[in-house]
């Protein structure tokens, strides 16, 4: 029982991080129909910027938090303006390849900026673990879980309850029709990029204190987040959270009851299974359009 609880805590912590990254994928997919493979790099930028601002420049926690999100969002906006919008024939596959290129570029720039070594940052609050029935839970895990819940609730109200959120969805369904109806579709796409980059930054900020951050951390995290998004159903915010948590918990249980060398295998095996049995994901409402 004690072991099981420990695996669960470990899984929930990792799963919540996958969930934030999956939310970034979902956010962009929902409003532009795009999958951004540079999402993991936004996470990396978030983590490293946070470490620099908080530990390096010794800004206060909330200020560093906000500045990091703002900074990474600007990177997202720049990516959209320079690399995505300027494409003459915006076929989805072309745009996806551009995002892969962008991820390689961001990784290179980060290597020059932060060096090749890993960095770490202190925890948000006290670092003594809680004891729950013999298993230990880190305060940072509670922070992560709390922030994820706040984000997904806010996102839910944004897309359902605000005009901007609805306009964004309209753009994804049919950009031209939305434009004819007076929705500034280009601004909406820009906003979606900024928000999904900001979401990636939040993921990075959360992960920085519990793990090590380096310029090349984004790829694995991005793939895991993508798995989680597919698992839950691309385009569904709650699906992203569910997929992330499920992935994290299954990984931890897999390590515990089978073998630790299977850890990454589990994520990708699940992805294949889901794509085969239920291509739309667990909470995905409509069939995912395949290119």
């Amino acid at each position: 029982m004690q072991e099981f609880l420990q695996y669960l805590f470990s899984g929930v912590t990792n799963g919540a991080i996958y969930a934030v990254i999956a939310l970034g994928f979902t956010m962009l997919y929902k409003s532009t129909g795009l999958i951004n493979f540079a999402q993991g790099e936004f996470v990396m930028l978030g983590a490293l910027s946070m470490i620099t601002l908080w530990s390096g420049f010794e800004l206060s926690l909330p200020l560093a938090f906000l500045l990091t999100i703002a900074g990474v969002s600007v990177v997202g906006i720049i990516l959209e303006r320079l690399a995505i919008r300027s494409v003459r024939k915006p076929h989805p596959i072309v745009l996806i390849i551009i995002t892969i290129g962008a991820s390689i570029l961001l990784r290179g720039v980060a290597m020059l900026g932060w060096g090749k070594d890993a960095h770490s940052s202190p925890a948000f609050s006290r670092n003594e673990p809680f004891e729950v029935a013999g298993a230990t839970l880190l305060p940072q895990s509670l922070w992560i879980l709390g922030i994820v819940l706040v984000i997904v609730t806010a996102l839910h109200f944004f897309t359902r309850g605000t005009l901007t959120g609805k306009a964004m969805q309209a753009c994804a369904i049919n950009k031209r029709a939305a434009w004819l109806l007076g929705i500034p579709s280009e601004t909406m796409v820009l906003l979606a990029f900024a928000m999904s980059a900001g979401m990636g930054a939040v993921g990075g900020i959360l992960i920085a204190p519990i793990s090590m951050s380096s310029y090349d951390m984004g790829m694995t995290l991005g793939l895991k987040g993508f798995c989680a998004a597919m698992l839950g159903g691309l385009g569904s915010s709650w699906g992203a959270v569910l997929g992330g948590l499920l992935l994290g918990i299954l990984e931890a249980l897999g390590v515990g009851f089978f073998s630790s060398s299977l850890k990454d295998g589990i994520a990708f095996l699940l992805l294949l299974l889901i794509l085969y049995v239920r291509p739309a994901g667990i909470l995905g409402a409509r069939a995912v359009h395949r290119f």
Partner: protein
Amino acid sequence: MSVKGRSVLVCVLALAVGMLLSVSPNLGRAGEVYRIGGVFAVTGPSSFLGDPEKKSLELAIDEINSRGGIDGRRLEAVIYDTEGDPTKTVLAANKLISKDGVLAIIGPSLTPTTLAIIPLAEKEKIPLISCAAGIKITEPVKPWVFKTAQNDMLAVATIYEHIQKKGIKKIGILTVDNAFGESGKEQLLAQASKYGIEVVQAEGFGAKDTDMTAQLTKIRSAQPEAIVCWGTNPGPAVVAKNVKQMNLKVPLYQSHGVASPKFIELAGDAAEGILLPTGKILVAEQLPETDPRKSVLKGYIEQFEKRFQMPVSGFGGYAYDAMYLLAEAMRGSNGDREKIRDALEKIKGHPGVTGTFNFSPEDHNGLGADAFVMVEIQGGKWKMLTP
């Protein structure tokens, strides 16, 4: 052909001519300088090895040149980046041999990349001094292949001696899923019985994993008296943090793969009390004055830190030693590779940064027990434990 096409052709031709011109004078000077090839993982995930190695090779070459070179000839380094990729390493080694005409090759940084170019070195009969740790590089002995990094076998033996002295019988091991971790795991399992130790739980982790509590939970349930973690940064720092978070009250041993100040920085408070084997370079100040290697170590550390403005790690020394060993073998060889190889094999008692080298036809690594000391991290510093 369009105007655009023709101008492209002209450009290509001009480039080709330019390249020919720039290469030929070098070929003409080949008699005046000795060229040494370097292949290191300067970028990529193993850059923590390759980057200091490249810098140390340049440092050693400048030092030798400033003392008049070898037999009046200057040394010149041609260094390529392998990015830790075996294919790129083979390409680079081919280029060093056929285009640059180097006398010997120093590197690569990793075991897989070294194994990839061993057939080439053997076929072309070119001395290769690897900076990688894998035992397969020099066992069985290959005539043209030497190495300067300590074997994992020695590191494991150093740890196990310490564990045995503490009277610990049951350990759990946690190794990274790459060549370094696999080799460590192999040795940890193979040597355990010799020291009366039982490995009660063996787990692995991915090089980029962000949380190892699941593996540690599994190890904890097997109730070991100590945990040995085998990996290179940043994974082991995460393990150190997780061990502290889970309140595991058993000693944590790490491998020499984390023996750099970076590990202490990453693990922070969690580094306190961790035990690991390391080359003497990290504790050079604490060595007794009678140690013949103290002056070599201090000289290297001083020069490296002055020139590159960064703290020294244990890894650059592999390339530094390789260059000095090579220089010793090259004296009087007149650039004959066969003579250099024979001379390398005869080097005895060479005090290097990593250890004292005693090569022989049966041993192309040449390091003994003095290559490692056990240290404990105390107050963010390395504290040498008396053997």
